């Protein structure tokens, strides 16, 4: 079941470089599964026009949370919402995945959002986590308190998450791996962890029209032709995703 509703914001909190929005809703926790996302928009104005795809960060009985990085107009407006403001919410969307009990999560920047959500479905694992600056690293304690080993790296200090993974390649062996981050990072990781790709999965991002498999706009090139992020994904086997 997918629903489209107007729901109120009940919390807007700055979290490092991002904004955490909590939205009141008693249904999402019954419907949403690991790997899914929602599309979010502004009621009563035609501009901005499209809904924005955003991963779940977490879901409680009375609400769900999103973690938002300011990128353009839509995310900027989202960051400025006040408690009581309303949003259009379409979801849950995307194909759910069955999370492994344990595994490896590799996050770059805002890529932490869906992986944090996924981690809530897991019992333990290892998180490789890269960001621009030290103060951008979020949730480390939280992950650790839930049985995750957290390995971080920042560009201002040392390098990218790809560097971090390269240094720790042996840890990956035999594990299921989940990646979320910018395209460049995914490409780099695809090269580095080639040998482990059977078990590796990636959360993909594409510009979306409908979020429901209708418009065919969220195409990702794979070895077997174009697939749709909103219908076949957002999680894809890393080895399928083609970067030529």
């Amino acid at each position, binding site marked *: *079941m*997918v*629903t*489209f509703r107007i729901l109120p914001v009940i919390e807007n909190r700055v979290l490092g470089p991002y904004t955490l929005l909590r939205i009141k809703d008693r249904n999402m926790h019954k419907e949403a599964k690991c790997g899914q996302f929602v599309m979010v*928009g502004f009621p009563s104005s*035609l*501009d*901005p*026009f*499209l*809904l924005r795809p955003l991963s779940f960060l977490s879901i409680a009985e009375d609400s769900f949370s999103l973690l938002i990085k300011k990128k353009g107009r*839509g995310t900027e407006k989202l960051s400025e919402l006040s408690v009581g403001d309303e949003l*259009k919410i*379409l979801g849950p969307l995307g194909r759910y995945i069955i999370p492994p009990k344990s595994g490896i999560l590799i996050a770059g920047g805002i890529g932490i959002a869906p992986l944090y959500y996924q981690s809530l479905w897991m019992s333990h694992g290892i998180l490789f986590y890269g960001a621009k600056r030290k103060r951008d690293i979020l949730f480390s304690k939280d992950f650790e308190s839930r049985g995750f080993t957290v390995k971080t790296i920042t560009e201002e200090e040392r390098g990218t998450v790809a560097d971090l993974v390269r240094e720790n390649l042996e840890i990956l062996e035999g594990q299921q791996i989940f990646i979320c981050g910018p395209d460049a990072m995914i490409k780099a990781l695809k090269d580095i962890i080639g040998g482990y790709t059977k078990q590796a999965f990636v959360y993909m991002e*594409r*510009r*979306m*029209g*409908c979020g*429901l*498999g*209708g*418009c*065919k*706009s*969220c*195409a*990702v*090139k794979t070895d077997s*032709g*174009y697939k749709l992020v909103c*219908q076949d994904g957002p999680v894809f086997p890393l080895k399928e995703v083609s970067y030529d």
Partner: protein
Amino acid sequence: MIDLSVNFAGLKLKNPVILASGVWDLPYTKIIDFKKLGGVIYKGLSLMPREGNPPPRITEIPCGVINSIGLANKGIKVFNREVLPELKELGTEVFLNIFGESIEEFSKISSLIRDVSGIEVNISCPNVEKGGVYFGRDPETAYQVTKAVCENTDLPVIVKLTPAASDIVVVAEACQEAGACAITAVNTFPGLVIDIDSGKPLFERVVGGVSGPAIKPLALYKVYEVSSNVGIPVIGSGGIGNYEDVLEYFFAGATAIQLGSVIFTNPLAPIEIIDNITKYAKEKGYSNLKEIRRCVDG
């Protein structure tokens, strides 16, 4: 009871609200009750499968969207096998939007279509190398395509026109002469978006098709032009977002209407619009669409 039914092309639709081609697919059954719709037009189908254009394929523009999908589809044969059976279960009239790069392709694909309410001939897509707008800009080619389709099917044939034609009325007349029983006006407007970081067009094919509220007054004018000059019914398409927009299209001469991009921003719009037309008719004391329209004619 308010009767919203409309007749055209020998068909009776339960109401004038039709889902446009290319914006929906079967997963929408998860959110829309298709039995309530007047009809649906499936995504453009070609004879052979088409991959479509490389991403990005869509982006937002002020009050609308621009797309460069490139008619990605599995081809008519796979469609007949895998999708058609499910469409037949939707409980609404199903039309197939078809696309060809040559007149021959249009003939062939038409002869393979069965078990649907009608065909919408797409000679108006701006996102392909051949066919599409190139056919729909030229009255002579529009005539030939329409004729080829009509000769290969007994189904009602609707032709979907491009606003990029120099004189859309002349093209519509050509289609009528060739046997079309209705005109859809209009498909997307050609447009351009540039990615200012790279300084290059956002879409690999440069041009894209603009749709949504931004084009409403432009598309409405095309509907007015066609319906004031051509005898066959016009199905309006372009920027419709609510029942007030639908009334504008009726008063401009449209017999039925299509909803496209609005479902991106409100997937429930089709149902809300049907409910609101009913409510409007009730409040005004009209019992059917003819009476709504008459408020202009009379």
